[in-house]
């Protein structure tokens, strides 16, 4: 008996065929009949992702050790061992879940994962520690409740996200849900959306002012708007394109102020075709729509898309869903009824203050189930499904803040609902507050994680939850987001206090750090992207939060937002406040700094042997890196002051100085001439791939090469801003390269190498 037999015709035929094909491909890969790269993309397109340590090795704190999986050399992708556990991403379009789907997810987490369901920053669900052999059954069981994992990863259209309160929001002109749903169905498996160089992200938002769908960080973002035409209200969208976070964030640009609803799907198709045809394919680092828009210019991109749109053969699917719109809507389970004042315990009052949103429909509210780090157990999810059945039915959604909302709660049911949530450990107050922190998986499970984003977030949540009653109101409403690396899965650029993991090589050890990111904005659909102001040791980040929030409280002008406060006070002053926190005590004085949050292992590579001579040279490199850090920070200040030319020059100068520092590990007499620095850097570190990141390859070096090749300074704020972000990443790559070099055993001073590491007396 298999799940395929058991579920039989409960799976839609098309989906059943797809999963059968996937299972066959898995079997063929087992027989060695499919290339590693091809199979990797195949499973990624079905959401079956890699997970940390799936290359079969791990640093256990005493050194890197092999993990001898019984795979007999079988792999499921390049450098990915067959039997190593993986992550299964499950697409939840616009976050919409039914109670039955919640039951199914709960079951799968228990049987194939570790009994934990994780809600992601794209409204997906992720299960970890899943064996590849279990994925076909897992997919069938999802398919039986109407969920597909197709195109959850890979170079595809990812989960289409939408505001979790769409349809019940007090501000929206209309409900964007059916449009998001239609976009998802239209693009899923569409032939024009299968040949991208990288992923493509779509979001729908009900309004401009609130965070909602975060359209500014999407390849295609649509904000609901209306206009009157011949006395008739017409629904449409303000369309933005070319946004994205990632290593180098780009704010989306206005493509069209009003696009009629019936043009949304053909336009998406046209963009997909232009992106597939003209988007970068070979260099993954530049293979997003944001780079294509930047390269072509918005006007040309728009022209090409419109031209493409005009050539498309008509497709009934573009508008078929519109006929169902008048009938679309969620049916509340119960009749709306207001809550009498004064009911409920103090715990209920605290929860209701932060976790309840009054719907525009009288007598109804949205209740947020705040999940610590986006996690809930399989048992909790199943019980939550029961709670949903009793109180709201199938009107449940996940959120990009890693929570779950129950919509259409009858207001008078709130005390009873709170009681039931309390009974299953899901009545945590503080939703959307400073103690409700978003964090990507980071080093817990992600292959790209540098520092423990979840460890830091858990520590901050613990401390801040204890202080909630005494925190100033303005501080309570701040948002913290943490990423384990620069790739921004924790969305650290679009919040008040953002952090992303980096590392520093100090005294022969590697120390976990976080870059402190300020200047971001959650409101206005992610209305401003923050920039890093400096790296602080991981263990000092709680003190960073305390100092900055204290200063906010003491210096805040009446009703001033945190964004306005940081703009007014300035990053220089805020950075100065943190200066002493950047110091790292020697290892023998406080070894705790050399471990990450929640992890007793020595961080990074332990047994380093750094020769005396190399040590001197390394310290020169560090000197240059410190200088480069100062320059990139100064570039930010100049950008804030509006001097884009100077900001551009400083960011470029920072990259040159960092490159020069690295060159000094081999060639001490490097001059200050940009041409020589770039040429030496290219020969010694790029061509040899010494500078290459394990996953990103040489992309950070390209930032320097591209800027060096450009003879004109930045012409606008956007390009200067991007160069600053690129310079910061180039610096991080230089730090990482330096740490790798330093971790290599000291080389004997053979003739060839003596010249490399000797310095003049």
């Amino acid at each position, binding site marked *: 008996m298999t799940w395929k037999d058991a579920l039989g015709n409960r799976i839609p035929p098309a989906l059943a065929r797809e999963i059968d094909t996937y299972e066959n491909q898995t079997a063929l890969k087992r027989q060695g009949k499919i290339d590693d790269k091809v199979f990797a993309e195949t499973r990624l397109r079905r959401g079956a992702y890699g997970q940390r340590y799936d290359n079969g090795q791990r640093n*256990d704190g005493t050194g890197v050790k092999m993990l001898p999986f019984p795979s007999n050399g079988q792999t499921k992708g390049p450098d990915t061992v067959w039997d190593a556990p993986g992550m299964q991403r499950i697409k939840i379009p616009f976050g919409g879940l039914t109670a039955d789907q919640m039951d*199914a997810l709960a079951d799968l987490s228990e049987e194939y994962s570790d009994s934990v369901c994780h809600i992601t920053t794209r409204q997906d669900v992720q299960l970890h520690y899943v064996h590849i052999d279990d994925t076909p059954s897992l997919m069938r069981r999802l398919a039986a409740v109407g969920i597909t994992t197709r195109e959850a990863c890979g170079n595809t259209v990812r989960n289409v996200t939408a505001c979790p309160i769409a349809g019940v929001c007090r501000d929206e002109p209309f409900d964007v849900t059916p449009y998001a749903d239609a976009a998802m169905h239209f693009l899923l498996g569409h032939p024009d959306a299968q040949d991208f160089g990288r992923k493509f992200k779509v979001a729908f938002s009900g309004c401009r002012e609130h965070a909602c769908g975060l359209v500014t960080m999407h390849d295609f973002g649509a904000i609901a708007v209306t206009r009157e035409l011949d006395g008739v209200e017409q629904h449409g969208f303000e369309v933005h394109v070319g946004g994205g976070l990632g290593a180098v964030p780009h704010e989306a640009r206005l493509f069209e102020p009003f696009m009629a609803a019936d043009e949304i799907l053909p336009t998406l198709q046209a963009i997909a075709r232009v992106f597939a045809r003209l988007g970068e394919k070979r260099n993954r680092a530049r293979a997003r729509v944001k780079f294509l828009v930047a390269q072509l210019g918005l006007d040309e991109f728009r022209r090409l898309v419109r031209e493409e749109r005009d050539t498309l053969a008509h497709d009934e699917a573009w508008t078929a869903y519109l006929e169902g719109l008048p009938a679309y809507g969620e049916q509340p389970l119960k009749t709306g009824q207001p809550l009498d004042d004064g009911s409920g315990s103090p715990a209920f009052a605290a929860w209701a203050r932060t976790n309840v949103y009054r719907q525009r429909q009288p007598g109804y509210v949205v209740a947020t189930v705040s999940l610590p780090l986006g996690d809930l157990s399989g048992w909790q999810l199943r019980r939550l*499904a029961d709670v949903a059945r009793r109180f709201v039915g199938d009107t449940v959604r996940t959120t990009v803040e890693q929570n779950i909302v129950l919509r259409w709660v009858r207001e008078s049911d709130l005390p009873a609902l709170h009681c039931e949530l309390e009974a299953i450990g899901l009545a945590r107050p503080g939703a959307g507050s400073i103690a409700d922190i978003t964090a990507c998986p980071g080093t*817990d499970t992600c292959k790209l994680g540098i520092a423990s984003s979840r460890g830091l977030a858990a520590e901050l949540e613990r401390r801040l939850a204890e202080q909630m009653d005494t925190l100033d109101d303005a501080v309570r409403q701040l948002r913290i987001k943490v990423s384990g690396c620069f790739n921004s899965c924790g969305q650290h650029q679009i919040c008040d206090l953002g952090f992303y993991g980096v590392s520093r090589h100090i005294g022969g050890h590697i120390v976990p750090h976080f870059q402190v990111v300020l200047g971001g904005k959650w409101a206005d659909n992610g209305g401003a992207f923050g920039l890093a102001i400096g790296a602080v040791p991981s263990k000092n980040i709680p003190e960073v939060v305390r100092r900055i929030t204290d200063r906010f409280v003491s210096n805040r002008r009446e009703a001033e937002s945190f964004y306005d406060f940081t703009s007014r006070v300035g990053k220089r002053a805020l950075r100065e406040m943190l200066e002493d926190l950047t110091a790292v005590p020697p290892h023998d004085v406080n070894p705790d700094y050399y471990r990450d949050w929640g*992890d007793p292992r020595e961080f990074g590579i332990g047994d380093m042997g750094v020769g005396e001579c190399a040590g001197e040279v390394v310290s020169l490199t560090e000197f240059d890196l410190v200088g480069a850090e100062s320059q990139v920070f100064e570039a930010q200040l100049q950008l804030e002051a509006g001097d884009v030319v100077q900001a551009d020059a400083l960011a470029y100068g920072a990259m040159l100085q960092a490159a020069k520092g690295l060159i000094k590990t081999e060639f001490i007499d490097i001059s200050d001439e940009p041409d020589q620095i770039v040429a030496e850097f290219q020969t010694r570190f790029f061509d040899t791939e010494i500078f290459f990141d394990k996953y990103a390859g040489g992309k950070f070096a390209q930032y320097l090469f591209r800027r060096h090749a450009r003879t004109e300074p930045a012409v606008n704020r956007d390009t200067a801003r991007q160069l600053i972000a690129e310079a910061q990443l180039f610096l991080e790559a230089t730090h990482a390269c330096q740490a790798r070099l330093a971790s290599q055993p000291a080389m004997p001073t053979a003739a060839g190498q003596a010249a490399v590491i000797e310095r003049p007396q």
Partner: protein
Amino acid sequence: MSNSTVATAPSDTTDVANVQRLAVKIFLDDESVLRPADVIPVFHRWIQTRAVDGLLIDVADYSHMATGPCVLLAAHEGHYVLDRSGGRLGLQYARRQPLDGALPERLASLGRILLDAGRLLETDTSLPGPVRFRGNELECVANDRLLAPNRAETLTAIRPALDAFLTTLSDGAVWTLTREADPRARLEVLARTPAAATLDTIAARL
């Protein structure tokens, strides 16, 4: 009753003898002596010293959740879990890869792996309090809704193997079995016997 049960579990067959995904949990006698955070370095040390059975991979901290797994020692063959499911802290071994032998043998193998790990925790001097597990209370889980849906007849089918396993542990004493009532849950059976016993004692009987 939700029709999700229909969608996710087969309706008429039990094949419990072939179940490989099995889990057993033992419960702490006094939960106040063990903070989950204290177990994290212990599990990391187990990886370094290969202290317990299996290919040990990594440690995951879920202590922020109110219930469910608390600290996970992920391993290829099966996870070791400091588990707070049902609001009770204990140590669970959840098998993920097949074991040799018929069901009674597999249960005994599982029990031995779990008890070895439990005794290691009991004797770990780095932990602040005296950690003691109850030797007269276990939870057995058939973590496979396809082969072992949570029904009375499944328990009937598994009962001989379970009885053999439990009787060995208690040297013949009778155990009371309580099955989880929710048909959507996995087959979870809580087994209790009146006579207190240490892990050393029951491990010696296996």
